[in-house]
């Protein structure tokens, strides 16, 4: 502390006081505007006769939903919105994976030594990047899915797989009561496989012998898992896909609607073009010196890619990839144009059906997508940290 202190200026000329005052004024302005908006909202809603709270969520919805988890119009609005959310996830989650894989292939193809492959990849990317994703979905729906042969005449492998303009049906497996205990065994199998993996890694480090980790770990996993299945007595049963009575529907198996296909492939194709460019850019961004050094070390091209280039390219790629994943998830709502009942579509129906409980539903919408975005970003951040922790910078 000093014996001498700076003089305090009068409040109205004090820089710090002014800053605080400015912020308080701003806050007051915001509050006033918000209050005005809320009053208008409340007044207008009351005029239409709509409640102000979220009570409507427990009311009977009264409208049907084309596809998704079990639901009937007698269920509540809350249930309806949940069905929409699940549909969004059904399309977004596999979509992210598929778009990433496709994008990776096309992205590497952009760097191929083969001119033809490079050009094809370039055409793919340029065509999709510059078309609105909504158009891609609509064109796929109208031009590819709907023109498929009608049910009964479409592509099929009876007992296994069907495809037509009514969608697809694939024979699948479904869980029996014994499924949960069996999951326990699966976890054990995973632990065993991991232990085998570590063992082989140590062997490799000690003796230089090729570890063949996958060759050892995978069979270990399967053996334990299958044994577990036998012990619990049949955790799964077959669900065969067939044509229903009257031949207008598929019964059994795992079904996907034509709308789903349109949205799914539309999203995947569109997003894969952007992911391809990210992959290409990040590989090219790995500095030339790195590639030359890797080469000088005598690594084969594949080894160079695997040990030097791709790990570094990944670090560069993660932030823009995060962006694209968020975009894909948000774009899933565009299925509304072909009638796919995702969260946004169901929400719109719900607003109309409930007579205008609009702001509440919009809040739910915004909140849901925020949560989805934050979750995806959170995981990408974890990956980012894992990838950057291990080394440079």
């Amino acid at each position: 502390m000093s014996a001498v202190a700076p003089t305090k200026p009068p409040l109205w000329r004090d820089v710090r006081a002014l800053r605080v005052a400015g912020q308080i004024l701003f806050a007051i302005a915001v509050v006033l505007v918000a209050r005005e908006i809320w009053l208008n909202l409340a007044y207008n809603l009351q005029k239409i006769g709509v409640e102000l709270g979220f009570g409507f969520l427990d009311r009977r919805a009264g409208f049907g939903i084309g596809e998704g988890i079990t639901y009937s119009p007698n269920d509540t609005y809350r249930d309806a919105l949940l069905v929409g959310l699940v549909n969004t996830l059904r399309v977004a989650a596999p979509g992210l994976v598929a778009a990433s894989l496709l994008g990776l292939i096309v992205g590497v193809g952009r760097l191929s030594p083969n001119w033809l492959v490079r050009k094809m990849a370039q055409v793919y990317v340029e065509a999709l990047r510059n078309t609105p994703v909504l158009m891609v979905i609509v064109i796929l729906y109208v031009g590819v899915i709907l023109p498929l042969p009608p049910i009964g005449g479409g592509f099929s492998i009876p007992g296994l797989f069907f495809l037509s303009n009514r969608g697809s049906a694939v024979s699948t497996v479904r869980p029996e009561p014994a499924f949960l205990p069996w999951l326990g065994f699966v976890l054990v199998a995973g632990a065993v496989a991991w232990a085998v993996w570590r063992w082989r890694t140590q062997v490799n480090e000690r003796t230089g012998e090729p570890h063949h980790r996958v060759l050892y770990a995978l069979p270990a996993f399967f053996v334990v898992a299958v044994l577990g299945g036998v012990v619990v007595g049949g955790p799964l049963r077959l669900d065969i896909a067939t044509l229903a009575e009257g031949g207008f529907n598929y019964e059994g198996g795992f079904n996907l609607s034509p709308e789903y296909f349109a949205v799914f492939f539309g999203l995947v194709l569109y997003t894969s073009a952007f992911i391809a460019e990210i992959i290409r850019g990040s590989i090219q961004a790995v500095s030339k010196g790195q590639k030359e050094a890797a080469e000088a070390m005598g690594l084969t091209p594949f080894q160079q890619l695997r040990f030097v280039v791709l790990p570094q390219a990944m670090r560069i790629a993660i932030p823009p990839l995060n962006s694209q994943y968020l975009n894909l998830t948000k774009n899933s709502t565009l299925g509304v144009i072909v009638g796919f009942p995702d969260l946004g579509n169901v929400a719109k129906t719900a607003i109309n059906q409930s007579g205008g409980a609009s702001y509440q539903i919009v809040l739910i919408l915004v909140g849901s997508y925020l949560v989805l975005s934050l979750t995806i970003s959170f995981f990408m951040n974890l990956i980012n940290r894992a990838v950057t922790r291990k080394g440079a910078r």
Partner: protein
Amino acid sequence: MSGTERELRESQMVLGLEEEVVGATIPDEGLGLRAAPGKEPQTPAEWAKANLFSGPFNSVVTIVAGFVSAWTLYQLFKYVFISADWTILKVNARSYMTGRWPLEQMWRIWLCIYGIGLLAGIARGVLPLRFAISRRRVAGLVPVLGFALLVELYVVDTLLVHALLAGVVAVIGIGVWIGCTFGSAIKGKALLYAWIAAFPLVILVLRFFGGVSERLWGGFMVNLIVAVVAIVASFPIGVLLALGRRGSLPIIRLFSVNVIEIVRGAPLYTLLIFGVFVLPLMLPPGIGKPPNIILAMIVFTLFSSVYVAEIVRGGLQGVHEGQYEAARALGLPVRKIMRLVILPQALRSTIPAMISHFISLFKDTSLLATIAILELLRQARRASAALGFAGKSLEALLPAALLFWIVAFSMARWSQRLEKRLGVGER
């Protein structure tokens, strides 16, 4: 090429160096350095060998890829020129572009097109032609122009429209000439103000003085207008949000961050639902429900602002701290510092990102279709629902998709060239 050289070149290419390999030196075994084949002109045969058939694996890939692309192209050509029935396009060309705009009011649209064409020509003429127009670029443009001419001849019936379209090209040319000859007399600021004034003028001409109500607006014109309105209006809002987010006043920063993150986290369709269902309820009771297109413009502006804010924020971060300090040391007040020193530098560096954002926004205007606005995509769908055109949905949609694609692709290419120029420029 010797075996070692070839492997070296291939492995370099796999790692993405193929652009750099041409002209690089590749060591020869023990005989010193020798220029890579790229430096000497290659015959087509040499090129084919290097790029397509350089190894057994590569050759197989080429053959397979060749079949696939040949088959695709064949199917494409067969569809476009033989099996598709394009009358739907011929009949609907006007509604694709302008929706249900009354025929007798078309002159307003033509007036706007001519005005903008003139301005654009002048702007192009004033800017120095720094890069000579290469032969390759002209050669690349010829098939494109040829195709455009073909489409135009097919779609347009009346001589009047042919003449008007030719007139647009002429007016642009006149603008370029004006810009070139009077370039020095025209100040940059004057041109900027002209562009800024053009924008409300267009709205004036189209809507007011006996103009057409926005309920009849439709087609591609709507996509363009909404995109331009959104981008122009969102710019100042975005800059303010960015400054708020980076500023030192915590409450304002909190506000800015939350607005940006919440709006960014929501899909545009969700925001449109908000705009159409909730926004009208938030207005004072005296005001009636505005037409959907106005609500859509507000939503698009809000949506665009937060992305502009993030872009500007990046630009602001790129300005050295020392610039602020020097300006403060000179005694400049904060708002002058921003206006005269910081923002000019920040914004210049954001130009490529801004253009990219504009392209995205333009593509996003297709979402107007989801709120019952008759923009291009919805027009296309509607066209195929009309009598006599059932089953022609693909023919209806493809031209619309192509139009979007051409605009987006051209802007992207232009942006790439602009980036190169800005990198080379003096400032």
